Every structure is written in C-alpha cells, then in structure tokens.
C-alpha cells in the first residue's frame, strides 16, 4: 500500500492521458529544446557575419549560405514540428478523454525524428542542401523524418478514433486538419522538387506553395489550436466563440493555402495574382483570431499576466495578426516596391515563425509539461523571465528588420543610389536585430535549464520510489521470514 501512495505523490494529479504521453513527450520536447538551442546558435553565427564579413569565413560549413538555412531548418524541423506534434498528441488524448495510442512507437518515432533532423542539419552544413527554401534537408534526412511522421501521425489519428468524449472541441478540428495536411504538402514538395523534380520554375512554385502552407496554414492551424485550448482552460471560461474559431479555420484552409507566390516570380502572371488576392482574403482569419482573443478576455488584457502560458499565448495571437497584416501590406505595395525581397520579408516571416508559432509552442510546453510530471517546473520564476526575454527579443529582431527593409526598399527604388550603399544602409538595422537574437537565445537557455532539471527531478523521483518500494518489500519479507 505504501508503495502505491508514494507513486501518487510522484505523479501528482496526472490523468491517464498525461501518464501515457509522458515518455513520448519527454523525447519529442527535450529533443526539440536541444534543436531550439542549436538552431538559434547557428542563426546567430549567420547574423554576426553582418557585423564582420570575415567572421568564420574560412570553414566552408560555416559560410552564411549554409548556417542560415541550417539554423532555420533546425528551428522549423527540430523545434517547431516535434513540439507541435507532441502537443498535438497530448491534446488529442486529453480532449478525447483517452490515452495516447501507441506510446512506445511514438517514443521511437520521436527519436528517429530528431536523428533525421541531425542528419539534415549536418547535411545542409556539409553542402547537401536542396536549394529549396524550408525544404533544404537532403533526401536521407527527409526519409527519416517522413518515416517518423508516419508513426506520429498514425498515433494521432488512432488516439482521435479511440476517444471516449465524442463531442468535438474546435482545437481538435485544427489539429486533425494539420495531421492530414502536413504529410500531403511535405510529400508533394519533396517528391516534386527532389525525387522526380518537375521542370524549371514549376519546382519553385511547388516550393513557394509548400512554404506558405507550412508557415501560414500549418503553423496557423496548430498554433491557434493550442491557443484556443489554453485560453478558456487558463481563464476558466468559454472560448468566445466556437463559431468564430471555425470561421478562422475555414479562412485558413480556403485562402491561406493559396498564398506565398512572390509578385516578381518569373512565372505566368495569374499565379502571383491569385496569391495576392488570397493573401488579402486570408486576412479574415487574422481578424477572426484577434476578435477571439479580445472577446475571450472580455477586453481585459491584464488577465494575460495571471499565467506565463497566457502571456505567451496572447503574444502569439498578436504576432499572428501583425505578421498577417505585414504580409497583406507586402502584396499590396506598389509595382516598383520590392518589399518581398527585402529584410521586411525576413521580419514578417520571423514574426510568424517565432513571434507566433514558437511562442504558442512555449505556451503549450509550459502548460503541459508540469501535468506530465505532476509537479511544477523546478525554477518557475525563469518561466516569466523567459517570456520577457523572448518577447523583447522578437520585438528587437522584427521591428528593426521591418523598418530596415522599408528603408532598403525605398533606396532600392532609386536607381541613382549605388547598390553597395543600399546594402550598407541596412547594416545598422541588422546589427540592432542581432541584440534581439541574443535575447531569444538567452531565453532558450532558461527553457533548456528548466526542462533539464525537470527531467532530472522526475527521474530522481522514480529512482527514490523504486528504492523505497524495494526497501518495503525487503522489510515485509524480513517480517515474514
């Protein structure tokens, strides 16, 4: 009996869903945190080259054109996707009042995923990048990631199917669509750009389609799915409203899926034109998301500060909306404007990728992790500190880059100005944005520290319980004999 109560203390009030998700999420999330650190360090190395072009110029594998995609891909495939998938599995189990289907295969799937990302990052650094943005990983890495996704995706669908709670919450719609959409876009893009490449610019169109579908639609579905779960849960009130959330869902998959083709793309004109129209229409999803946050909070934004996960979630929604409107401004800018080829575009996609999606994932990780282990994070104060570092880091990276991009675009439109001067005009902004990169990196160390200590404490608990159980058994045996 005493052994059972000791077990309860260690697991706290974890539900069956939490217990079944424990090891799968440990693997997916801790690996994700590792890649988060690795990705931001690689990105920082790339940024330093704008301060000193000669910095680390000698080794081929640290040249800007390799560290930049390696860092970004570590961020997307190493951090964003595995943590998104981990949180998706947990949410599907929790919302369905069931346990995770195939927990042990998912543990191995998670390991394989992170191995695949490792192979991909090394591949990009060694010069094996495919050349297609957000699809740089070479085929051997993609094979591992795809095999792993098969396990994770099937586990998600099976978990959904075995749910005990038949009624569906909006989050489940978002996540289920995401589970189906990722293999579709990823296999299409990989096959048509690398396995059986289509001809000429058709490759680039497929690549742009994939990028937009990953970063706007897929990130949108999962990120908003997480936020729409967390808001009512942490505020202890209803989501305002389910209909509005379904509206956002439809706008994303109807219009968001047709975006991403740049206006100067050397392709038949209807393709960028179509993309321009749908980018504007997808703005309805932004309005919807903003309205949901506003109405669920009852216009009282101070409520966000009651929980660090709410702070992350609120910041994420704000970033989603701002990044979306930056995208609309980009497609609507005049014919001679090249904002989409300037730092403005980098700022916008970073705001979407990090300000929105990574922040939503942080919200989810900080909310879910303590439920898995049954105890709060060992250093709870660092969670709030991480928020402030991340928030200021994003703003310090995005605002200077966006302003710098607008300045760059203005100078660029003036053919009298030598290109070298246009390029130099952006350096001050770039250098300020490096401070932002350093701040976000510092935040990542705080998250890593908490995760490491939490796993350590959890394992130590397990060892202690095992020892105590063994001691009690021995004592009982001693009494009996």
């Amino acid at each position, binding site marked *: 009996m005493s052994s059972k109560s000791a077990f309860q203390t260690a697991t706290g009030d974890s539900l069956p869903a939490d217990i079944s998700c424990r090891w799968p999420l440990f693997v997916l999330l801790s690996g994700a945190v590792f890649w988060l650190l690795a990705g931001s360090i690689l990105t920082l190395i790339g940024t330093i080259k*704008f301060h000193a*072009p*000669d*910095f680390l*110029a*000698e080794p081929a594998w640290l*040249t*800007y*054109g*390799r560290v*930049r*995609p390696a860092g970004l891909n570590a961020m997307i495939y190493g951090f964003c996707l595995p943590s998104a998938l981990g949180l998706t599995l947990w949410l599907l189990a929790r919302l369905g009042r069931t346990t995770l289907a195939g927990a042990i295969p998912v543990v191995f799937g998670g390991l394989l995923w992170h191995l695949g990302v490792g192979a991909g990052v090394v591949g990009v650094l060694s*010069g*094996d990048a*495919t*050349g297609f*943005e957000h699809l740089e990983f070479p085929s051997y890495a993609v094979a591992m990631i795809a095999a792993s996704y098969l396990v994770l995706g099937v586990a998600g669908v099976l978990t959904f199917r075995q749910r005990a709670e038949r009624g569906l919450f909006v989050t489940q719609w978002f996540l289920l*669509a995401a589970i*189906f*959409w990722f293999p*579709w876009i990823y296999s*299409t893009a990989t096959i*048509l*750009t690398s396995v059986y490449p*289509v*001809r*000429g*610019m*058709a*490759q680039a*169109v497929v690549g742009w*389609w994939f990028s937009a579908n990953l970063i706007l639609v897929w990130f949108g579905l999962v990120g908003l799915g997480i936020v729409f779960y967390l808001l009512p849960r942490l505020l202890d009130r209803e989501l305002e409203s389910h209909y509005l959330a379904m509206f956002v869902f*439809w706008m994303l*998959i*109807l219009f968001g*899926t*047709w975006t991403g*083709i*740049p*206006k*100067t793309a*050397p*392709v*038949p004109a209807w393709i960028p034109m179509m993309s321009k129209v749908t980018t504007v229409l997808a703005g309805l999803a932004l309005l919807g998301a903003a309205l949901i946050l506003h109405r669920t909070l009852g216009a009282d934004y101070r409520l966000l500060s009651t929980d660090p996960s709410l702070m992350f979630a609120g910041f994420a929604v704000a970033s989603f909306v701002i990044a979306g409107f930056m995208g609309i401004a980009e497609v609507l800018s*005049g*014919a*001679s404007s*090249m904002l*989409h*080829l*300037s*730092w403005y*575009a980098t700022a916008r996609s970073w705001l979407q990728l990090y300000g929105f999606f990574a922040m939503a994932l942080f919200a989810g990780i900080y909310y879910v992790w303590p439920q898995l282990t049954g105890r709060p994070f060992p250093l709870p104060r660092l969670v709030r500190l991480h928020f402030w570092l991340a928030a200021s880091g994003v703003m310090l990276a995005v605002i200077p880059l966006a302003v710098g991009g607008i300045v760059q675009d203005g100078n660029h*439109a003036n*053919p009298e100005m030598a*290109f*070298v001067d246009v*390029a*130099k005009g952006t*350096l001050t902004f770039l250098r300020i944005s490096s401070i932002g990169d350093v701040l976000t990196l510092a935040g990542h160390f705080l998250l890593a520290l908490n995760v490491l200590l939490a796993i350590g404490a959890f394992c130590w608990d397990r060892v202690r319980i095992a020892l105590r159980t063994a001691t009690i058994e021995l004592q009982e045996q001693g009494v009996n004999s």
Partner: protein
Amino acid sequence: MNYGPLVFLAAFAALAASWFGFVLTPHLQIGHLQQTNTVPSGVSYPVARSGLAQQGLQVYRANGCAYCHSQQVAQTGTLFDLVLTNPGTNQASTVAAIQSINPRLSQPEVLEIIGKVPVHLLTMVSKSTAEAAAKTVNATGANAVPWIVPIGPDIQRGWGSRRTVAEDFLFDYPVLPGSQRIGPDLSNVGVRQPDPGWHLRHLYAPASVVPGSTMPPYPFLFEKKKVGRVPSPSALPLSGIATVEDGYEVIPKPEALALAEYLVSLQAYAPLFNAPLSVALGKPTSPTETNSISISGGDKAPSDISMP
C-alpha cells in the same frame, strides 16, 4: 445531426483545391514549357548551360548563394522609344517632321543625327505617342519604328533589359530564384561581368573588386600554396587589399572555376514573345548600344510614364 464527416469532406476538398491550383496546374503549364525562339531573331532560347556551368550551379546551391542573391528582375511596365532606321531621301521634310515630334531639336542637330542611323528620336514615351510620331516621320518617306523598352527600378539599375520569365530557368535544376537582395540580383551578372577572372577575384576577396562590398569572402574555394619554381599560370592575380604572403599564391579550386563559369552563364536578356523588347537586328544586345546619341522625348509628359 452529426456534421463531422461533412466538415471533414469539405476541409479535404478545400485543401485539395489548393493542391490542384498551385501544384498541378502550374506543373501542367510551366512544366511543359519548351525551348522557344527569340523575337524577332528566331534564335533558340534558352540553350542548356555548359557542363562546367551546370557544376557551378551545384556550387551555388551548396553554398546557399541564393540566400543573398535573387535571380528575378522585376519590370513595372513598358515604354517606347522611336528609332529612326532610314532617313529617306526627302531630307528637308524629314527634318521638319522630326522637329515637329521633338521640338527641342534644332535644325543642325537633326541634320547631324539623321546621318547616324539607327538613332533614337524619342525615348520613354507611351505607345500611342510613339506610334503617332512614327506615322508623322514615315509620311516623309523616312523609316522610324517604335522600340519596346521595359522599365522599372531593376532595369534602370542595369540588372537586366527585361523581366525574368520562366523560360530563363528551363533547363536548371534546382531553380534558385532567391528570396532576398542582400546582394545584387544576378540574373544578368554574366552580361555585367563577362570575365570569369573577375568573379574569381571577387569570390576570394569581394572588397578588392567591389569597394565597400558586404559580401563575405569564400577562401575555402581556393587553395593557398607555396610558389613553385615557376608561378602557376592559374594563380589569382591579386592586388590592392587582397594580398597573400610572399612566396605563396592562390589557386582557384575546381569548385571556384565552375562557380565563376556559372555566374558568367547568367545572361537572361533575350527578347521573347512574352517578354518583348526591341534590339538591333543582327546584334543581340540591349538597344542602348545602337547609338550613344539619345534625345529625350520632346512631348513626354510625366503622365505618359506608367511607372508609379
């Protein structure tokens, strides 16, 4: 009623629609592009890059050049020049006609330029202005033709003579149109810098050939070694701020040579049916090279220019 399956099917259809629209249709359209002819010369375009240039494309891909350099020249519109190709025999009326379309020209000036055909009588005017002026001039027995001139900041910057089109990338794998202009657009860098040696020096020490360049150097594409009894003929001629210790020389590796060859092969200026521009026949270069005398359009109102 359970709407679940219905919503699922509708969502499936919405996602599938984007796949049909932005994957399948572009593939059917662009994926079946064939080699075309330049207009009006009728030369096959594009031709596949040389083997060395194709290797260079792989060096360009492996080192992520596309993260800083785009290959997409934008064009914001099209304007017209009026070019006199034949002054005719009736000199007095031709001069009068030219003066009527471009009153800024004095009689001696007109007499001077009509001896140097082909010459630009009007530059950067609207299509209707150019056509009306051509009619006036041609009525005298002279021959003047409107020339198509693509415009836009990229073109004024000298990055190309027309917009980039899908045909320019027909035989490339992977296509690398780029997404950033941290460095200049390279669609036509082979026209601007046709010397592979320039590209090699630029890759080794960018600021030595482009003062103030923010591009990082690529020393790993080169080999630094002791000068033998005879200096290597392929050693990089270094000068200025790009130097190497005494007794050493810098030899480009095969990757560097391939990359330079690829950069020189980047020449996407051929006039095509879907990206027209006028060039002097028999001389496939940009129209500005026909004759250095060009006179700005006399009746050109700012509203004639469709550039925003």
